[in-house]
Each structure stands twice: as structure tokens, then as C-alpha cells.
């Protein structure tokens, strides 16, 4: 695994946000981003793509972020990939809950797309 963060699997059901985040990550952070619209797709793609980080929305239809993460952690090949949640649920408790599940960080929506890449990188490096 490279020492710098390059490959990010991004899971988000909202198209607009996904577009903006993708743009921010690719244009500002210069990351290689694979965007999946659902947790199920993400689970299918994650092994092939083998990202260094998974950035994942919490509230998604069919399979939400925490479940997707739990399933990933259950897949040995991808179990070690750090995961950052993005959520509109800004409550401290909820954030703590996600951290307890094994996430390395929580980014609260709305976020600043300019500083987003720096924050992700910080979190990734700290983990």
C-alpha cells in the first residue's frame, strides 16, 4: 500500500452530492475515485478496485453505511480498508457510534468542498 492516499471508493446515493464530492476529490485532491450509488454495488466493486479508503454516506436506501461497513469488515480482503462516514446526522452520539463501529472519521454534511480533501487526508494519515 502506498504511503500517500490515492484510491478512494466513494459510496453515495445522492447524485448531486456525489458529483460535487467526486469533483472535489478528483480536481482538488487529485484522487482516483470510484463512485458507487449503493452499498450493494460498493461491496461488489471494493475487491476489484481495492481502494485505500472508503468514503461512505450513512443514510442510503436498501443498505445503509454502517451495514455496508460491517459487511466489508467481514470480507478479509477488504477488512482493513479504513472507512470515513459522511452524514447529515450531526449529533455527537451518532458520530461516536460510527467511530465505535470502526470508522476512522466522520464528515458532517454540509461540508466545505475545498477543505474536504485535506480533512480526508488528515484522517487517513492519522489512522
Amino acid at each position: 500500500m502506498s504511503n500517500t492516499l490515492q484510491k478512494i471508493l466513494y459510496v453515495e446515493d445522492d447524485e448531486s452530492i456525489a458529483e460535487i464530492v467526486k469533483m472535489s476529490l478528483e480536481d482538488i485532491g487529485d484522487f482516483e475515485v470510484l463512485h458507487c450509488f449503493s452499498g450493494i454495488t460498493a461491496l461488489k466493486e471494493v475487491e476489484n478496485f481495492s481502494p485505500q479508503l472508503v468514503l461512505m454516506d450513512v443514510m442510503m436506501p436498501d443498505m445503509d453505511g454502517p451495514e455496508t461497513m460491517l459487511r466489508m469488515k467481514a470480507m478479509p480482503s477488504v477488512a482493513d480498508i479504513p472507512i470515513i462516514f459522511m452524514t447529515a446526522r450531526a449529533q455527537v452520539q451518532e458520530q461516536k457510534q460510527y467511530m465505535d463501529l470502526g470508522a476512522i472519521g466522520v464528515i458532517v454534511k454540509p461540508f466545505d468542498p475545498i477543505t474536504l480533501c485535506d480533512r480526508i487526508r488528515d484522517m487517513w494519515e492519522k489512522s
Partner: protein
Amino acid sequence: MPKKIISERALPRLLLRMLAIMIIPASLTYYAWHVATENLAQASQAKFETMALESERALRHRMDSYHQALLGGRGLVESAGSVSHDEWKAYVNALDVATNFPGINGIGIIEDVQKDSIKEYIQKELLNNNRRLNIHPDVSHNNYYIIRYIEPESINLPAIGLNIAFEKNRTEAADRARDSGKAAITKRILLVQDAQQTPGFLLLAPIYNPSMPINTAEQRQKAFLSWVYAPFIGKNFMNDLTESQGTTLNLEVHDGADDSEDSLIYKNSTDSAASTPLFTITKELQIMQRTWLIKWSSTASFESQTSNNEPLLIAVTGSFFTLLCGIFVVTSSIRNQGEVVLHRNRFLPAIGFCFISVATLFVYNIILQTENELISKDVKREAEVFRQVISSNVNNRIEALSRMADRWTTAEGSKRQYWQRDAQNLITDHPGLKVVEWVDPNYQVQWVEPLLGNERVVGLNILFNEERQKALEGAAAHDKVTLTPPLDLVQGYKAFISYFPVRKNGEFDGFIAGILSIEELMRDVLQGSNTSQFAITLSYDGAPFYHSNKTGSTETKLFFSEIIELHDKQWSLSVTPSASYLSQTQFILPETTLIIGFVLSLLIAQLIFTTQTAQQKTALVQEKENLLATFVRHTPAAVAMFDTDVRYLAMSSRWQKDYGLQDKNVIGKSHYEVFPEIPIHQSHWLVLHKRAILGEVIISEEEPFLREDGAIDWIRYELHPWSQGDGSPGGLIMFTENITERKKMDSMKDEFISTVNHELRTPITSIMGALGLLRAKNHKQLDPKSEKLLGLAYENSERLSYLVNDILDTEKIAAGKMNYDLKETEMVSLVVDIVEQNSSYAERHSVKFVTKNLVSAAYCNVDAHRFNQALTNLLSNAAKFSPTGEDVEIRIEITAEDMLHISVTDNGPGISKTFHSKIFDKFSQEDGSSTRTKGGTGLGLNITKTIIEAFAGEVSFVSTVGKGSTFSFHIPTIRVDRIKDIA
């Protein structure tokens, strides 16, 4: 509330009370009935005894009067020496046997003739009286007792010439009379002249030669002349002795001491089939030297007469009275049962008292009247008996004297010797007759018998006064007896004198006078009478002259008077019951009734009073209980009270409703019986209950409660102990609030807020992200206007984001759901970081944050994230309101009290004083107009204050209009490191 007349619980108590009250009048009634019955039996017995006594007296009197008649005959024979048939006939005729001596068959003379003198005797009789005697039957022995005369002859023909010595009964009686000098009767015999041959007897009185002594049996045999005799047929003699005989009293007379059929002389009833009489008296009487056995028995008629209705009346009245008492108790109880008696009727005890008292007086009066009636009846009956006894006895003596006078007249005067013998006999035979006198036609006393002690009387002129003279002269003229009023005689006793005019050769020949001592006369008369029970008073012309009871006082209200007719005088007889009779007859019943009645009245009054008081107390308690019960029932919370065994004592309606107990009666039941799931699944409640009972107050804001059906109820509860009056644990009071619904609502609300949060933030995220990227990419490439517009769009989307955050926070605060993760946090670096994070915002407003730190490190117990939010609010406000280019100063200090002091000072417009008080209110902004320029929700300071207060801190501010404002946090520290070298 349904109104029952008597509750089931009260019924046995009421019955008991009723019985208790009724037992007194019932006992009284029984006692009264018993006494009345006894009384009646005694009265009947007494009445019967009186009737028997009356019968006995009548029998004795009849026998005495016949004896008198015989003595009269004897007097005639003695005074005349011998009597011719005509003289005898005249004498007997004068007696008018049929009228005056009912039952007597005749009066005759029997003479003792030697067998060898019979012929001579018959010759003499033929010569003297021209009668041929048929002497019969012949006997072997020497003595013939021949009936010479018997008048009236017509009905006694078979007896003339009869030798009564033919039979030993007759002979024996004749010998006994002769030898004893007294009259004697034969045993039961059958008279020869009685065709029906019913039982009878002979009465024989001896006649002696007056000139010979008769002190011994031998002397009497020597002096004996003949017998005067009377034959009796039992049924004629005994018939109609008294009015009662045959109607209310049966009489049976036997000769001798046994009551066999052979000895029967008389029996008025032949009805042997009659039932056994209730009352009988058997008595042996000494009658003319023979013993008679007399049997009196009551008749059915008497028994039915004497059974009066008094006991029945008492029983009925008493029962009625008892019933009234019972009804009184019941009605008063029922009246008081139906309603809550807070105000008792003060008059009820008095009414009860009066009611029973009046009833008592009524009963007392009835009993008293009945008793007096009974006594009056007795007195009246006794008075009649006394009247008869006195009248017959006195008249009997008068008649004896009268016959003496008749003999004087018949014999044309008398020899003094014969007169004396006659008088002596009279005095001997008639107790009370003290002196017999012959008064000559000149009204001077000539002969006196006995002379001894009466010597002064001889020669006395008896015409003492005009009245006496008139009476005596009148008597002489009309040949009638006259009696003096009762007199105090010179001899020293009280007496009355009867004067009988006598004639000689048709001329007035003075009087035979008899002096009768009233005291002695009455003593004899009243012998065997009921003088211990009744007192009699005799008066003449209104002046009493004799009292039978000389000492004891008697009841004067109950007396009865009778008139005793004695020839030309009238005595008044007054009979009063004696004290001893009254004590026997007057029972304690009336007084007892009165006392018990009054005691009962008092008891009833007392009972009513206490019952009322108790009822009133109970009612008051009941009312209080009702009030409390109502209060508890309607308490708008689920409250229940339990005893130390956690059994239900009371509960509110809400409790019943919350736990589905509406239709169940759980009072008295264990809480664990009502909710069996508690000991099974929620056993910790048992511990909680125990702790509460022992005095602990336990409060829980929310706790799940697993119901039996598996459902979970969320409850908030409080357990409080309660104590008894003596301070000992009474149990616990449980207050619960079923917050399940609220919990549901809360969770729905949370869900809603969460959803709104997400749904609002998602587009804001897109907008802000897009604008942010656009600004970053096209920096310096856009014309200034476009860039300004882009900036405005970004700022406002940012503002919208804050607004959403603030609104959600405010919601959380309002719902009490703002959660703080309090941790010991180093505040200086935290403040510096936050200032740093917000510096870009300051730059946007062209201001600069300047931190003045006087502390190296300070540790406080805060939630860093929330502190960030609070301080950010102050910083953004300061940045917003500072004029361009100005500094915003952030100071970090530690006060003397080790409080962390963080202040943010701007040089803005300041806050007007009028707004100072509203600055921390929700949605408060000084510039409330729609044209305000600074933005913000007006929620920031409110949220800030709430957060800082959650850290036990305070928010304050100082502001001067035109100069700026300083907002400060004061937060207690845990520990502090001060920087010493900073000024």
C-alpha cells in the same frame, strides 16, 4: 350511591341492639304476667277460702240457731216444770220453724221411761193430753227413750212414740247429752219419718231439774228430766247454707273423720263425673260433740269466674310495649342508616324518654287500678261476710232474749228461781251477754243476773232521758224489742242493752233486758274471722264505737261500708284492708314497673344519645373518608397506596385506568397478586417496594415495565414511604406515570428531526459544495459582480446550514435531549483551536481575532464539541458586528476563584439597554426588521447559554451602545496552570 335501608353488615348489630332493648320490657312483662297469674291464683284461693269459711260459719250458725231453738224449749220446760202438748205446740208454732229454722224437721221432747213404767206412762199421757202413744219398737233393755212430742206433728207422725233407744247411735248421743249437760248430735242415721231414707241426725239437749245441782255427770243423771230434740234430714239442713253453695262451691259433709260413702250426711253435687276441682278444703269440725268432716270444692263455674283477663291483659300490653321498644330502635336505626347524620336530632333522646315514660305511667296506672279493683272486690266481699256474721250473731242473741221474754209471757210471769236459771243458761250459752235483768212495769230494775258486780243496778230507773223514755214506752206499747245505742256503762265497759217487753195476764209486765258487752260480743263474733286481714269499724249514728284493729294503721282509701239492721237500730259497718293484707295483696309490681320503666326510659334516652353521637362521629369520619377517597380517586395521576404487605389500600382512577383495573376490585389484594408478572419477571420491584416501605424515597425518570402479555410499558415512577400515627412504617405510596406514549412520540419526533436534518442538509450540502468548488475553480476568472454574487450565494447557503443546525439544537434543548459528553478538557488549546478554525470567517468579515492568553493550561469538565459550538457563536457574532478592519479580542483568564474566564470583545455598535434583558431569548435579535443585514437565526446566544450552563458555567455580557460589547464565559476549573511572566 345505592341507598339500602339496612346494610348487611349492620343487620346483626341492629338485631342485637333490638334484643338488648327488648329484653328489659320483655322480662318486665313476664314478671308482671307471672305475678298477676300468681296473684290471681292467690286471690282465687283466698276467695275460695272465704266461701268455705262462709259456708262453715253458716253451718255453725244454723246449728247454733237450732240449738237456740232447743234451748228455748228447755227453758220452757225448766221454767214450767212440765209442759202440756198444747203448750209445746204453741211454743213450736211461735218459733215458726218453717220460716226461721229451715232444714229442721221439728222440735220435740224425748223422755227416759223405765220399761216397767211404760203402761203407766201411756196412761198418764192419755190422761193429760188425751193422746194415745204408740211406743215402738220394744227393746230388750230397760230404758226406753220415748219421743213424747214432736212438732209440727203432721210431718213427724212416724216418730211419735218412737223409742229411740232401739238403736245404739241414737242411744249413745242421748246418753252423751244427758251426761255432759251439753247438746249432742247422733251419728249419721236414717230418720223414721223420712220416706226417702236419706241420711240425717238428731240434735238432743238435756233438761234438768232446776233445783238440783248438775256439776258432775252423776248429778246430771240424777237431775235429768228429759231431752228437747230436733231431727234433721241432712239435705234439708245443709241445703242453701250460702249463696255460693251449688253454684261456685260444692259441699260434702261426712259424719266422723273419714270421707267414705257410708258416712256421708250431705253432698250437694251428685255429679261425680266432674273433673278434679282446682280448689278443695277438707276440715274436721267439732259439731255438738261430734266430729264432722267437711269437704268444700270449687265448681267449674267458680273456676271460670275467677280466671280473669288480667294476666292476659298484662301479657298483651307488655308484649305491645316490648314491640314498641323494638320498633322504636329499628325505626330510629333505619332513619339514621339511610343518610349521613351530621346533625343529630337533639330532641330524639328526650322523645324516647318521654315515650317510654308515658307508656310506663300508663302501664303503672293500669296495674294500680287493677290491683285496687281486686282489693276493692275483696273488701266488698269481706264486708258482706262481716255484715252477715255480725248481724246473725247479734240477732241470735236478741232472739234468745226474745224467746226468754216469750216464755215469760207464755208462762204468765216466772218464778225468780226459774228466771235465774234461764238467765244463767242464756249468759253461759251466749258470750257477750253480760247481764240479764227484769225491769218492772215502773221501769225499775228488779231482778239482775248475775247480781254480783251489778248490785247498784237493782232499783235503778231506766228512764234516763226523754229519748230513752220515748223508746221504751214505744216498745212497751207496741210490744216490740228496743235497743239502746252503744253506751258506756257504770260497770266500766261499752255495751248496748236490748229491752223486750213482757206481759202477764195480758198486761204490760216490764222488760226482760239483756246487756251485751260490745267488746266481748265482737270478740266472740269475730272469732275465726279474717280480722288479721281486714279491720272493721262499727259506728252508730256516725260515731264509731268499735274498732277491731286497735293499733295498726290501715289504708283508709279502700274501705267498704255496710248497714247492719238490728231491730229499731242501724249500725254502720266499715271494713278496711289491714296493712298485712295490703302487703300481701299489693305487690311491688306497680312500683317496680314505675322504677324499671323510668330506668328504661333513661337507658333508652342514653342509648339514643350515644348511638346518635357514635353515628355522628362515624358520619364525620365517613365524610372525611369520602372526601379523601374522592380526592384520591380524582387525582389526575396514577397513585396508589399500599400497606406494608404491598396490599392495595387506595388508588386513583387514573391508576385503575393505566393498569386496566377499572372493573376489578383490588382493594385489600396484594399488588403481586394483581400483577403476577412482577415477582416472576421484575423481581427488582420487590426490593424497591421494600426499600420504600423502610423509608426511602425512590424516583426513576423512566423504566421499562414488561407486561404479562409481553408488551413493554415505559414508566416514570416515585415510591414514597408513609407512616402510621405512631411513626411505624405504614406502607408505601406509589406514583407512576405511564410514559410509553410519550416515549413513542419522542422517538417519532426524533425520527422526524433526523429525517428533516438529513433531507435539508442533503440539498444544502450539494449547493454549498457546488458553490465552494465553483469559487475555488474560477477564482479571479469571474468579473467582480459575478464573483460577488457567487460569494453571496455561498454565504447564504452557509447561513442556511447554520440555521438548520441551530433549529435542530433548539428542538433538542426544548426536548431536553441535548446530550453532553462531559470530559476533563484542556481549555486554552481548545479555545485557541476554535479561534483558529473560525479565523477564516473573521477574514471574510475583514476582522481579526486576537487572542490574549494569560493562562498556560486550564482544565474544565466540558463537552469539547458543544463548547466549540458555543464559542463559535460568540466569535461569529463578534466578527459579524465588528466594523471592518477592527480586531476582536479573545481573552483567556483565571479569576481569583479559579474560574476560567473567556471573553470575546468587539468594537461593534453595542446593544441598547432595552434589549439587554432579551438577549438570551430565543429568536431575539435587536434589529427585528425585515431589512436586517447581519443575518443569523436569533437562536445562537440562547443555545450558547444553555451549553455553558450545562458545564456549570455562566454567560454574561457588558455592552455600551456605540462602543462595543464583551461576551464572557465563566466556567469552573478542575485545575489550572498559570503563566507567570505575561503581563
